[in-house]
């Protein structure tokens, strides 16, 4: 156990030191993206691993990104305040949709379809309110005046962003681990096996599920807001909608749904894949990355449902046993 902590400490120190030793801006940019998306994927997997498959996370991400940006542009509210507000909004949305689902035992297919509709609707709302949000053309937070970058959470410097993204990513992993070690995990596993039996054993099914969903939704909204602050451009297709939701599912399943670093591995693979295709094909690549994603998703679900990291971990366990 001790050696494990040391390995983590060394790894983390290396990650923190990295941008000071290696300054290629393009590669740093990729790393920041990977870290932000890893965080988003981790937050999806917190609920996905308990068979609570949500395709509504695109919606939560969209709320996080758009509410933060809209508050800043229209009311001048700093993202430092705007991000918590946007997270609360996403949390409210999650509760409004999830509570009836859980209270009335809407599970499996039904739950997926309801959440799928949720992310579709958030997309429609963003498109419909085009007078404020710019609709499908996308939206850009106003540039802060010089010297106010910190207040506006806007940094030109890639290293700062890298460290912010790294910090959030680590927080995500810590939350994943805390859930993994909590009583909630046992409750959730019991629920995913058999809701009635779990309820009979004294598990408050609705409350447990709602708790996990809320954690997951809040984290996803944060990921959306951070993504918006970093990229300084959001469009309904990149932060909300069914495409984003499916992309989360894809990355997590490819990486491994039941292991801590699975979503991170998924993010590395998807982003490197998308970038390679973009560089290889240039503008002709539009669509190709999703085509490859889709085919891989189907293949993985059929042949390797535990994902890359999950399968490796299983092999290792076998060898030990």
């Amino acid at each position: 156990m001790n050696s494990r902590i040391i390995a983590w400490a060394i790894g983390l120190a290396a990650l923190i030191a990295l941008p000071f030793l290696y300054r290629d801006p393009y590669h740093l940019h990729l790393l920041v993206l990977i870290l932000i998306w890893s965080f988003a994927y981790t937050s999806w997997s917190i609920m996905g691993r308990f068979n609570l498959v949500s395709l509504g996370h695109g919606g939560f991400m969209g709320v996080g990104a758009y509410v933060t940006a809209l508050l800043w542009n229209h009311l001048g509210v700093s993202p430092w305040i705007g991000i918590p507000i946007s997270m609360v909004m996403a949390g409210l949305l999650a509760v409004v949709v999830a509570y009836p689902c859980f209270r009335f035992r809407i599970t499996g297919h039904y739950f997926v379809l309801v959440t799928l509709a949720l992310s579709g609707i958030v997309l429609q709302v963003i498109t419909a309110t085009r007078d404020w949000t710019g609709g499908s053309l996308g939206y850009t937070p106003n540039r802060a005046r010089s010297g106010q970058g910190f207040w506006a959470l806007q940094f030109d410097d890639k290293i700062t962003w890298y460290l912010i993204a790294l910090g959030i990513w680590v927080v995500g992993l810590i939350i994943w681990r805390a859930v993994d070690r909590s009583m909630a995990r046992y409750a959730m596993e019991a629920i995913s096996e058999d809701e009635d039996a779990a309820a009979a054993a004294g598990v408050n099914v609705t409350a447990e599920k709602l708790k996990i969903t809320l954690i997951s939704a809040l984290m996803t909204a944060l990921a959306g807001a951070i993504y918006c602050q970093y990229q300084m451009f959001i469009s309904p297709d990149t932060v909300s909608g069914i495409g984003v939701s499916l992309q989360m599912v894809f990355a997590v399943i490819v990486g491994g749904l039941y292991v801590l670093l699975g979503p991170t591995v998924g993010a590395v693979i998807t982003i490197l894949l998308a970038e390679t295709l973009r560089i290889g094909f240039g503008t002709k690549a539009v669509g190709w990355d999703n085509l490859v994603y889709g085919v891989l998703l189907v293949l993985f679900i059929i042949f390797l449902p535990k994902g890359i990291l999950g399968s490796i971990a299983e092999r290792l366990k076998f060898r030990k046993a």
Partner: protein
Amino acid sequence: MQAFLDIFDIYLLEAVINGILLGGVLALLALGLNLIFGVIDVTWICYAELVMIGMYAMYFMVQYYGVSYFVAAPLTILLVAILGALLHYLVIAPLLTAPPINQLLATGGVLFVLQSFATVAFGIDFRNLGIRLPVLAFGDMNFSYARLLSFLAALVGMVAVYLFMTRTFTGTAIRAISQDRQIMALMGVDTKRIYLITSALGGALAGLAACLLVLQYDVHPFVGLSFGPITFLICVLGGLGNFIGGFIAAFVFAEIISLGGLFSDLEWGYVLAFAFFIVMMFIRPAGLFARRA
């Protein structure tokens, strides 16, 4: 004041009737999805994308190769039916014993594939058939022939499916399987064949919907997203696998969208429909017509 009310009523009536006409096509889509779910116990997330491929097929046949609309339509239906069967054979069949969520996510992968295939192959331009059907004026109200035609064709399609399900042996077997999956195999019904036929039938319904929708809407790779989510809501509200529930829910939703669109943008109609859906879930969580256990 009286004049204002008259106009308002006519617009309202027009919206109500347009809603009914829209409901026909939505009911057709819901029927296909319900059929697949009821029989195979799988939800095709990519159902609306099959429709999109069908719309492209219509577009290319009619615009590029000059095939007449009425020749192209059966070909499109056949093509999408084959796609449906392929989808089952390649993706669903290997996953029949896997957790249901995996099947659903795999069709999500197919959604990606179909969308990006359309993007790569056809580009992201909006295309339309260029057939302009006349507008039917009735009193002071205007209805497009395209909508009327779609409504009637959708009804005919649904009646045909109904007759197939009740009057033929295969249809009876399909209904029997949806009642009890295990027993039917013991009764000597080849479930694999029935699944394949059902998938093709679901595909054919998507193809028919494509032929009708292409008359009213432009085709682009993401067109599925504009009616896919609403179809899922309809199916859940009606009760997944419940044909009659889906049929009625389709009209309820179509009215909400149409009337919502009357007062504001069409997108708000969708938002309204979703809000209505959430409220309904509190009231009738297992669908509009769930039998009480």
